[in-house]
């Protein structure tokens, strides 16, 4: 991968889960592909994926990398704050007890 030695590529088919479709839709909206105001570029998505530590990159699935990168970009751009994000995550965790 990236020109580095790696194992064999094993392609597998799978259906997208609901949350994965939502992450994709979120990116389409934020990058201005459909309708709304453009709040980020695909280049920022890539930059913040590249900034993941190697072990996190390996551990995460494709859309987990996307949602992590989108979140990082929204914090960098001041669309959301770390404080808001942390509070909301606490609320969601409580709701799902």
């Amino acid at each position, binding site marked *: 991968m*990236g*020109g580095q030695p790696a194992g064999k590529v094993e392609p597998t088919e799978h259906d997208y889960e609901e949350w994965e479709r939502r992450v994709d839709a979120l990116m389409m909206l934020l990058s201005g592909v459909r309708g709304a105001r453009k709040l980020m*570029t695909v*280049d*920022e998505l*890539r*930059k913040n994926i*590249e900034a993941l530590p190697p072990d996190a990159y390996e551990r995460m699935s494709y859309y987990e990398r996307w949602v992590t990168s989108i979140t990082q970009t929204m914090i*960098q*751009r001041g669309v959301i704050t770390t404080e808001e994000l942390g509070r909301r995550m606490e609320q969601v965790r409580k709701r799902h007890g």
Partner: protein
Amino acid sequence: MVEARFRRGDRVHVRAAYPLGHIRTPYYIRGHSGVIERLCGSFGNPEELAQQRSGEPKQPLYRVRFLQKDVWPAYRGNPGDLLEVEIFQHWLE
């Protein structure tokens, strides 16, 4: 928009530079030589777009053709096997 400096068939060298930031030129192709296959158009500079800037002026993007055997040490496939990579003009000389 930056003017296109290369034409189909021109031999080009990819800069062997390794700055920080978001760069679309793959590591493995930096420092190698290839031939312009086509001009793909001009696009916002991703190195700038990744940093919340405009990406202007737009940069010409080329499809550049390399020989696999030139890129990978001890390549064991057909000696004529090709590799095509899309590279922005400011990475070519």
